[in-house]
């Protein structure tokens, strides 16, 4: 299952200028990709062409700061964009997650030159792949390292769950440097020694290409090393920034499932005997059930937007308190987007019936996608993090997964 060598150089890329334009572009792109989502999932067709169109929309550049020629959209907008795309195709919404993550690391720790350089790449359609730290492993110490030989630097190691790497032009990788400090090394995809294997075989988010990447003595350009350790030593919005994208994906998948539910009830579902109605959409208990799903999605969405606002505040000024508030708000959003996403995806069937499980609709992909993606890190500890702050005034742990 080696990655097919499909990666093309970026074509012409639109530059998005505002938050509104970003939303409109997302809506248009979502409409474009929605029809093919079922088939891509079913046949595990990697979305190469869709990604090139995605890049061309300019949406991969929306977080580039205005100073570097981007729209510098708010985190609320970023979350909305991701949710809109996730409603159409959960996998396509997850693929840029690490791209935006890398840009945020860059914003937070890069030199002005690095920021100028890599932001320009992003605006030109270069996709950045994986870099997420492997929080939660028993072996928390990194096995991927930066080594020096004859005065030159190389990366050696192996990473798993590398969402997006397969589709990336540049692969930012978190490693330990010679002083055991974490750095993010940006590596051109075509560097010698990089092997990308598409070995992701989970039942959901099937075409994210979340495989493994091995680095065998990969040469490093010293200018392409961005310090990363500071984000664990000082309050940094990088953790909640990564997490809010997860929340947006889960909400979006749930919204997509809900959007599938309604026309199916209206146009295809069978009324139930005991309801005494001739159309499924007139069943009072079905109507109430639709309302139940709607309100859970609404509550989750409200927390997502709330988190976006607090995260924007933390990005404007990162203090112990502002980052903690953002982390907690994002944790809260993760909790309710997980619940609402799953609910919408399972109620899709309860409110329609067996016929929705048949044939080519492949409607179970919503549940498979949201179930898989919500497992990124365990939501049960989000309640604890929030409670420990509310009850005991304890700020959340600073390990990057909250």
């Amino acid at each position, binding site marked *: 299952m080696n990655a097919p060598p499909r990666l093309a150089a970026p074509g012409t890329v639109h530059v998005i200028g505002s938050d509104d334009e970003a939303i409109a572009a997302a809506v248009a792109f979502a409409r474009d990709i929605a029809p093919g989502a079922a088939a891509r999932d079913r046949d595990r067709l990697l979305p190469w062409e869709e990604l090139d169109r995605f890049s061309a929309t300019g949406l991969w550049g929306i977080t580039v700061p205005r100073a570097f020629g981007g729209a510098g959209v708010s985190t609320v907008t970023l979350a909305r964009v991701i949710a809109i795309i996730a409603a159409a195709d959960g996998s396509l919404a997850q693929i840029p997650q690490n791209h935006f993550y890398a840009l945020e690391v860059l914003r937070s720790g890069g030199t002005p030159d690095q920021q100028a350089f890599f932001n320009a790449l992003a605006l030109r359609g270069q996709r950045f792949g994986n870099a997420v730290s492997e929080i939660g492993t028993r072996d928390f110490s990194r096995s991927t390292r930066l080594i020096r030989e004859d005065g030159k630097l190389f990366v050696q190691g192996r990473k798993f769950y590398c969402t997006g790497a397969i589709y990336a032009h540049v692969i930012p990788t978190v490693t330990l440097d010679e002083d055991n400090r974490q750095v993010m090394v940006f590596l051109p995809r075509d560097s010698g020694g990089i092997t990308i294997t598409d070995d992701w075989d989970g039942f959901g988010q099937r075409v994210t290409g979340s495989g493994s990447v091995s680095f065998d003595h990969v040469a490093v350009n010293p200018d392409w090393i961005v310090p990363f350790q500071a984000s664990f030593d000082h309050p940094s919005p990088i953790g909640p920034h990564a997490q809010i994208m997860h929340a947006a994906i889960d909400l979006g998948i749930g919204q997509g499932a809900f959007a599938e539910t309604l026309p199916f009830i209206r146009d295809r579902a069978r009324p139930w005997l005991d309801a005494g109605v001739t159309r499924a959409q007139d069943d009072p208990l*079905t109507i109430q059930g639709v309302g139940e799903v709607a309100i859970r999605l*609404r509550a989750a969405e409200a927390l997502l937007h*709330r988190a976006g606002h607090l995260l924007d505040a933390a990005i404007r000024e990162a203090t112990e308190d502002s980052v903690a508030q953002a982390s907690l708000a994002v944790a*809260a959003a993760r909790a*309710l987007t997980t619940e609402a996403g799953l609910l919408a995806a399972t109620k899709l069937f309860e409110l329609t019936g067996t016929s929705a499980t048949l044939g080519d609709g492949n409607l179970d992909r919503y549940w498979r996608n949201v179930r898989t993606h919500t497992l990124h890190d365990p939501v049960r500890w989000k309640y*604890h993090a929030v409670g*420990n702050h509310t009850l*005991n005034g304890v700020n959340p742990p600073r390990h990057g997964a909250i």
Partner: protein
Amino acid sequence: MTTENRAERSPLPPAPPRRIATHDDAITAARALAEDWAQSAARRDAERLLPWDEIEAFTRSGLGTITVPKDYGGPELSLVTLAEVFEILCAADSSAGQIPQNHFGVLRLLQEAGTPAQKARFFGDILNGHRIGNAGPEKGRKVVTHNTTALRLTPEGLRLSGHRFYSTGAIFAHWIPTRANDPEGRPVQVWVPRNALGVEVVDDWSSFGQRTTASGSVIFHDVLIESAEQVFPIWQRTAIPGLAGPVSQLIQASIDSGIAQGALEQTIAFVRTRSRPWIDAGVERAQDDPFVIADIGRLQIELWAAQQVLRDTARTLDAIAAEPLTDDSSARASVAIAEAKILTTEIALKAAEKLFELAGASATRSDLNLGRIWRNARVHTLHDPVRWKFHLLGNWHLNGIQPARHQWN
């Protein structure tokens, strides 16, 4: 708990209140009141003492004027502000805090349905410190809009008779608006002075919750209605999109949000200072029990969601109110407030019930009277049945059906 009491006290004569000009003024004033009310809320509930001083202080603070339009000399603060004021007050004392609800609900109707002369007169009254109560729906098994209260034409003018119930705030009010049928049998709203001859306000509210709201009977014994200005032809309103229903519901949801906030605060204070750790937790302090922590986290998360949706709803209503109302925008307002209503209802009940589970049995002891919080949450969330809000949302999303236009949507 004797329940058939005439009011033992009357409202002070209206006097011009302090001036509130901005959102921050309003919040500051609300916080000051809340701090005071919180001290005595438990005792008022336990002894069923009506919050006369508290309501007079509310009026003096100027908070009663905040929705009066600028055109009529008021600060015309937003519904966002109004909602937050109710949340703050009701976190401290949801009974006292509920009392002004009809004041603002009626003012919204005045704004939508009043003639310029009516607005000038009645908004002027408000700026001069008048309070509005209402005479609520009649008791009984008929649907809640069933009405036998009626105006009849007499040689001296219109006279009003009827027995109303659920009259939150009437006992404290200077004006008591009531729904009635006019001589042609059409629904109107009639504003009756609290001290008019034949107005009887009875403190017969015997519910176990919101005990000091005095939400009981108002009886009109052939009350002479002196001026046609006091009669609002609300039968004309059913065909016209309005926001009186959503604004009234916004206040209800804000009350419940406040109750939830108060419940969570009490839980935290109790767990931190008085609860005992459970043996299986193996911890020294109750607040270190991982299940207590996670349960508090869940309450906090759901409360944040309810608060955020409430705030979004208030903003939506403000935006809708700023444009000419349409069938569609009025429907959207009803949908938005239904969302807030569901979430605030749920978290108020849940936080009030969980308080004891997390704090432990000693939290049921009489000293703090924490039981009032659940009783208040339970009773206030019965204002209208939340199950039909789910149906409303479902019917909107699934079938594109606009919510029925009545004062509970």
